[in-house]
């Protein structure tokens, strides 16, 4: 939805797809009919993971660069929050004002992502996965071994959001709305950016870098800028993650978590910004309730199987699956052609999985 049209008052409510309205109402009213556990552990956590996966999706789906270091960027921003803000382990904790710490943390997350981008900008496809995985692991080891700055294996605890306007933002309901706002904002931002000149440029670079170079685009800088933006997203999600857990330690950014983010993004669907959130909800629900349905200990097998099945049979993730089933259910309703409700024909929602490095 173009922001100019939103402000110009020319948008009518009938132009928005009804499913989106239902979803928005559901999400806003969610805490009113669920327990605190569901609001916080399931709702807020899915939104945070979904946002980190969104930063990965933005690079992978739109940019063709699968960077596994997004979780590390989020973790780095979380660590900065602990180092420059307040923490309860008496290591670092400079006690900067909350607004300054948040801005620093987000920018540091973006900086981390940009550096990763700069290192891997000359690589493509598979090489990018390998190199970003290695960087993520190197960061994990460094953070685990360093006690002076990062407090090693123990990590930091006692990191809390500031109490503003008399609300304790760590309580389940306010925190949920905070994460919902952040997720909605970034979702809108990524959607909007994908239609902007920059976004279209990135997608064109994904499809054919040589052509873009011939057209005069500086491919390297475009890619690094994309990393920067996705770093902003990951950094913000990292701040919320560290508030959610109340702590951060090397375990939060280890190999398993890094791969989990990839699993979430791929299972949800790497072609549309909603995909990561879908994947995150599936992941979090499985993680919490696998013990009641199947053996808790084999959670990894279950999630691995889901991931494998998705990649084998529906490479666009669950969203791609939905996109293919939905037209079959739709045939009863008449197709309304105004307002852009027919299936868009671009690669974002057409459900075809073009490989990213041909």
């Amino acid at each position, binding site marked *: 939805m173009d922001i100019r049209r939103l402000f110009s008052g020319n948008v009518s409510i009938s132009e928005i797809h009804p499913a989106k309205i239902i979803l928005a109402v559901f999400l806003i009213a969610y805490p009113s009919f669920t327990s605190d556990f569901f609001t916080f*552990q399931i709702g807020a956590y899915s939104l945070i993971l979904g946002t980190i996966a969104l930063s990965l999706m933005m690079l992978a789906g739109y940019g063709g660069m699968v960077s596994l270091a997004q979780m590390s960027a989020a973790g780095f921003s979380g660590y900065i929050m602990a180092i420059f803000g307040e923490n309860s382990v008496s290591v670092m904790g400079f006690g900067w004002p909350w607004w300054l710490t948040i801005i620093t943390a987000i920018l540091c997350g973006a900086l981390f992502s940009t550096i990763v981008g700069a290192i891997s900008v000359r690589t493509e496809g598979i090489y990018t996965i390998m190199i970003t995985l290695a960087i993520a692991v190197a960061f994990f080891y460094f953070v685990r071994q360093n006690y002076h700055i990062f407090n090693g*294996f123990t990590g930091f605890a006692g990191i809390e959001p500031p109490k503003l306007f008399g609300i304790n933002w760590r309580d389940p309901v306010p925190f949920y709305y905070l994460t919902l706002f952040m997720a909605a904002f970034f979702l809108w931002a990524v959607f909007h950016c994908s239609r902007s000149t920059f976004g279209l440029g990135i997608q064109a670079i994904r499809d054919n870098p040589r052509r873009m170079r011939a057209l005069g685009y500086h491919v390297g800088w475009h890619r690094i800028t994309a990393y920067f933006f996705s770093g902003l997203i990951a950094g913000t999600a990292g701040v919320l993650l560290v508030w959610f857990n109340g*702590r951060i330690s090397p*375990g*939060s950014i280890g190999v398993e978590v890094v791969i989990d983010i990839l699993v979430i993004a791929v299972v949800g669907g790497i072609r549309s910004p909603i995909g990561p959130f879908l994947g995150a909800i599936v992941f979090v629900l499985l993680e919490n309730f696998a013990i009641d349905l199947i053996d808790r200990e084999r959670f990894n097998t279950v999630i691995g199987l889901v991931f494998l099945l998705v990649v084998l049979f529906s490479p666009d993730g*669950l969203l791609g699956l939905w996109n293919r089933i939905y037209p079959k259910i739709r045939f009863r309703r008449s197709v309304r052609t105004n307002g852009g409700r027919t299936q868009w024909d671009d690669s974002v929602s057409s459900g075809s999985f073009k490989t990213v490095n041909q």
Partner: protein
Amino acid sequence: MLVMLKKTMATALLLSLANLAIAQGTIKMGALATLEGAFTVLGEDGMRGVKMALNEFNYSVGGKKIQLITGSSDASPDSAIRAARKLVEQDGVQVLVGPLSGSEGLAIKDYAKTKPNVTFVNGTSAAQDTTLRKPAENFFRFSTDGAQWMAGLGEYAYNVKGYRSVAVLAEDYSFPYTQVFGFLEPFCRLGGKSSIDARFWVPIGNKDYSSVIAALPDDVDAIYVALGGADSVNFLTQYEQAGGDLPLVGGSITVDQSVLGSKGRTRKFIIGTPASGPISDTWNDPRWNKFVADYKKQFPDGFPSPSLFAHGYYVNTKAALLGLQNVGGDLSDGGKKLRQSLSSLVFDTPTGMVSMDERRNAIADIFLTEVIEGPGGNLVNKTIEVVPQVSQTFGLQYEDFLKYGQVGRENPRCE
């Protein structure tokens, strides 16, 4: 997506209704151990200890039934917090026993402060700061910490074994720091030396000790090794292979049952290695023998002898149950009476009397052991001495003990 969410919400609603129905005459107890990842076998043994204690009370106390709900972590603090949240906030447990590992304990202590109406009892986590610095009012540790586990070993190494200088080899995180502190502090006070260059802190999960072995000095009398489990097995094998011949001094999990009984060539060269910890496999005391017999009867597929994890979880669960018994199972006041009862609890365990200090840490007996060749040619730990009633501050005043500083790579300096 909507459909799936509706389904899960319906299940959750049903479950919570069911929970409400049983809630009236039941006490919910949660048990948290490392049932995932590489420490699964240790966590399973911990759970056996919990079940042994519950069996003694027949799963009921004060006329109410006890419902045990298990939670699992993988030794990382984040997973422990997630599991604890699920147990406390979703399943509604009123007493939580756990966790297993040191760093998890530090995290759970912080979490406990946010849930003042739930009573948290330790599993086997043994980091010092869990109760020494900024303790939580509702976190009780009826097992001893890693430094307490080293009581008597430093003096034994200096006085009986005659070592005057040692090198140190341990993993680079809080539990080994605590163990090294517990060993070196008395050793150095008596006049022993351990230079900072002779301390080797290896990254966790490091399998290759060959270069560290090469860097070990030859001009020391012994090497204090505070590795555990797989790392210890690897080190001992590689040390023998590299032709190392310095005597060793062991930490609490360096030469315990899991290491001595592991498959592979019998390592004769560790006969004579002293170590210390909260249990000793071969202590000839009727209470311990009964505990071992009960363990073997209830769990024929467990270890040959209960590990310190089964023991720790058993003692802590038993304490929680005794406390519940004392208040008649009444948790209507958010557990206040229970916690009061626990703070002053004194009871007998398979390894001696246990009582609480003012920061809710255990005062208990510690066992000094040495590796010998048992009947049948396998290696076992012989009890040399029982150090009675060791407290967290080793008998010093709290403020004086704090002066030693937090455990770390260079504490104590001891040059």
